[in-house]
């Protein structure tokens, strides 16, 4: 139906931009359209004759399918297709790492909400009603929902290879020896609930049948991996599947796995008509993976002067029904298990387990959130046992450049952990409420819902520091591709940047525009719609796109620049001095103008495509959890100030302060946005966000029952940004997106413990945890 253009349309129409390159707070080029309501998200796309798809999902967490009767659904007026597993043209299962997830369940369903059948109809309501008429004969099976039980030898096997998705055994030094000599030992067991990405733009897209295959416009994080899985399931060559990045309403890891991609494509190929699938909010909770719930057992031993002697522990990650990114999450949890501290002796066993709970996978922080909550709680516990100030204890054990991690990897980039804490401690504290003065109800925990006068309100302050690897680790070939084209347009040079990097809201398109402007000295830069007609950019994940696709854009720009200089020399003769491209012209460093770029490319554009790989290849961990598994690390520290009403169990976070090392802030305004938004998600996990699952059944799939922070819940954020250049990265930048989400949860918990004196070993903290424990 539609032809793939040689070059896709721009993401946004552009006026001549401000003269802003790397390091400037350039305003987002797509913001004008977004504030006007004209930006096309994946749910806004339509086409002539488009049908609406709807998905039939399992009401059971575990059941055998004895039969599926589609006759009534098919007979429903306005219905154009009803499809089941028998209609999947190619591979019946897909997956990011392991193809274990059925496109449509055939003989068994393994989680509540698993897709079983598809309907396409003229109207979305017709599709929904017909979906309700698909009769699936289920034989319910007992759901296996406790990961500890699923790990047991006699547990029923949910997958042919058993219930362990990933096991990491990590061992360094002599833990038994160190344990025998430690002066102080603290132990704890911690739990993290299942957090949802809760991006606002629901899963959605438009599939259009083409002469040879299908064109899919979708909100995703990695176009090429979607295409790889789509082609396999549709039994099409990859060239016949064209995937175009539609506007993304947030991602945070929840769009790494496929959702409606294969389903819409199957319906489109079957009906030969365009098909839209747009999930509602409830379906969205079933449509993507969540953050792994975790149970973490820790034991820390230290010398009397507050040096960590050993840490040992055991971590269970509930991976739910399918593998998704469980193995990679387990890797990151392994690498971050003891925190950013020097620990000579370490022993851990980490398991990611299959259960009949909802599948879990990528969410911002990716295994490092769970470990940080536990190791920082342990550091507070240890500080108390030692009688040492908790910040001082952290400072004393902080890793620095050159330190060795428990995986054996040496930190060779900046690791200013002690400085982060020192600067954080030096930041001013918010004012205490005046004693005895009546308080504005809106400033009390619970706001105007507070039924006391604040007599039970206690203030607490807590600190935490966290870190995570940046980029893909564990031996993945991490690379990206960029195509940069310079042409003449109405007498002016125009730069077009074409990559397959998904802009999910973080501002990658602005970053890539700034880099191109900086490298080429040309003001007018347009970032084109990402699609699979250019090489892979990898996933918008792991805080990597500014670096990796940014690196690819920079490399392609360098190739373009070299060609520009060659043409200038060819035309004007060799120059005695170095040449550069500035202000839209090739100039000598004497300032003499050789040739305007527009003239050099008129009628003969320069078009260069380059791949970029960071200068370090990572390795998988060995059988003892040893190996240089990570590209590098990003660090951030947080301080939370909270008011807790210990009578009502209500919490108000008064302020979050943070210090983060970002390497180099390519766009400071965007960096602040990542920090503030990441902290809000950390606050959500601390205080309110949990997908509640009982016996495998999701109880709260709505924004009425799954709460995310509102503007009333988020306090002011006090931010200090450090810029220690990361030597491996272009411009010295570092990944920024995930560190804000990691220690913010732990800092709030630390502050809550300070206010209440309660152990609070589980997040999210419920009012009951505060009040009941107070009564006890």
């Amino acid at each position, binding site marked *: 139906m539609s032809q793939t253009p040689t070059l896709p349309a721009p993401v946004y129409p552009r006026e001549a931009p401000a003269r802003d390159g790397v390091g400037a707070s350039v305003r987002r080029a797509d913001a004008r359209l977004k504030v006007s*309501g004209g930006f096309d998200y994946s749910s806004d796309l339509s086409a002539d004759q488009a049908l609406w798809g709807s998905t039939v999902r399992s009401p059971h967490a575990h059941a055998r399918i004895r039969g599926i009767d589609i006759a009534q659904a098919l007979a429903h007026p306005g219905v154009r297709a009803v499809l089941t597993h028998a209609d999947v043209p190619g591979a019946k299962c897909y997956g990011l790492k392991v193809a274990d997830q059925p496109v449509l369940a055939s003989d068994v369903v393994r989680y509540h909400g698993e897709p079983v059948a598809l309907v396409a109809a003229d109207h979305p309501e017709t599709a929904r009603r017909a979906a309700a008429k698909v009769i699936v004969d289920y034989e319910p099976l007992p759901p296996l929902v406790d990961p500890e039980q699923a790990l047991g030898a006699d547990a029923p096997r949910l997958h042919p290879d058993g219930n362990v998705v990933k096991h990491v055994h990590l061992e360094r030094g002599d833990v038994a020896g160190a344990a025998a000599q430690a002066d102080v030992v603290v132990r704890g067991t911690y739990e993290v609930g299942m957090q949802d990405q809760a991006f606002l733009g629901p899963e959605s897209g438009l599939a259009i049948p083409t002469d040879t295959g299908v064109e899919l416009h979708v909100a995703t994080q990695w176009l090429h991996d979607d295409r790889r899985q789509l082609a396999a399931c549709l039994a099409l060559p990859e060239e016949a599947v064209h995937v175009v990045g539609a506007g993304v309403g*947030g991602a945070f890891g929840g769009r790494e796995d496929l959702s409606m991609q294969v389903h819409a494509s199957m319906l489109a190929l079957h009906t030969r008509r365009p098909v839209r699938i747009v999930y509602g909010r409830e379906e969205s909770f079933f449509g993507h993976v969540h953050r792994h719930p975790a149970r973490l057992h820790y034991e820390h031993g230290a010398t009397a002067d507050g040096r960590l002697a050993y840490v040992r522990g055991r971590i269970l990650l509930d991976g739910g029904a399918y593998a998704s990114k469980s193995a990679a999450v387990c890797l990151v949890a392994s690498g971050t298990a003891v925190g950013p501290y020097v620990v000579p002796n370490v022993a851990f066993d980490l398991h990611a387990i299959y259960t009949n709970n909802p599948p879990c996978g990528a969410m911002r922080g990716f295994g490092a959130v769970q470990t940080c909550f536990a190791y920082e709680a342990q550091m507070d516990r240890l500080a108390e046992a030692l009688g040492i100030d908790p910040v001082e204890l952290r400072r004393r054990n902080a890793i620095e450049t050159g330190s060795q991690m428990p995986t054996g990897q040496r930190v060779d980039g900046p690791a200013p952990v002690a400085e982060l804490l020192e600067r954080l401690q030096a930041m001013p504290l918010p004012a205490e409420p005046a004693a005895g003065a009546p308080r504005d109800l809106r400033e009390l925990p619970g706001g105007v819902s507070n039924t006391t006068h604040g007599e039970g309100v206690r203030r607490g302050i807590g600190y935490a520091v966290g870190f995570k690897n940046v980029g893909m680790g564990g031996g993945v070939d991490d690379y990206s591709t960029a195509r940069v084209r310079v042409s003449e347009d109405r007498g002016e040079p125009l730069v077009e940047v074409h990559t397959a990097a998904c802009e999910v809201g973080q501002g990658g398109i602005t970053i890539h525009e700034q880099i191109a402007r900086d490298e080429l000295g040309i003001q007018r830069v347009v970032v084109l719609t990402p699609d699979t007609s250019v090489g892979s950019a990898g996933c918008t994940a792991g805080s990597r796109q500014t670096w990796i696709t940014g690196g690819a854009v920079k490399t392609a720009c360098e190739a373009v620049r070299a060609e520009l200089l060659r043409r200038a020399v060819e035309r004007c003769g060799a120059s005695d001095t170095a040449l550069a491209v500035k202000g839209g012209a090739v100039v000598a460093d004497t300032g003499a103008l050789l040739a305007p770029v527009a003239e050099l490319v008129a009628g003969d554009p320069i078009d260069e495509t380059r791949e970029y790989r960071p200068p370090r290849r990572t390795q998988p961990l060995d059988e003892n959890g040893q190996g240089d598994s990570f590209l590098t690390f990003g660090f951030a520290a947080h301080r939370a100030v909270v008011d807790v009403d210990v009578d009502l169990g209500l919490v108000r976070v008064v302020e979050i302060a943070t210090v983060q090392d970002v390497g180099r802030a390519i766009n400071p305004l965007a960096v602040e946005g990542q920090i503030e938004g990441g902290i809000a998600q950390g606050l959500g996990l601390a205080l309110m966000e949990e997908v509640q699952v009982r016996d495998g059944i999701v109880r709260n799939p709505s924004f009425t029952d799954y709460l995310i922070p509102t*503007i*009333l819940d988020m306090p002011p954020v006090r931010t200090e940004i450090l810029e220690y250049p990361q030597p491996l990265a272009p411009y010295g930048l570092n990944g920024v997106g995930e560190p804000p989400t990691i220690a913010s949860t732990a800092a709030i918990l630390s502050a809550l413990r300070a206010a209440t004196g309660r152990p609070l070993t589980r997040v999210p903290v419920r009012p009951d945890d505060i009040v009941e424990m107070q009564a006890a």
Partner: protein
Amino acid sequence: MRLTCTVNGERQEVDCAWGGESLLYVLRERFGLRGAKNACEQGECGSCSVYLDGTLVCACLVLAAQAEGAEIRTVEGLAEDDRLHPVQEAFVQAGAVQCGFCTPGLIVTTHDLLERSPHPSDAEIREALAGNLCRCTGYEKIIDAVKDAAARLG
């Protein structure tokens, strides 16, 4: 079912295939005005905020039939020609837009707040925007944008 109403100053008539269609569905799918967003469709997130006869509503909670004869103003109706409304300009400049899915709802809600209260305090801003969820920004830059918009509007 036939629906007649005024949208952003223009009289519109449309046949709805189904009486259960929401105002949000009709705006998006029948009038092609996709600025109001479909983030939760249960009145929790404010992404579909529009004016219905001058009152701020979640378009997902209004049946299209309830809009018969009404005047509706959406985010698309705020800019004049090519000039952004000061509230829109303030959101762009403050960095209050990331993924932007919540943005149209926040723009209309802020517009409504500043009509009622041209110089709101922080507490008033938070109260007025409490029904609009944002997952990207942590709201800090949204508060900056509202204050900047108030200043721009004088």
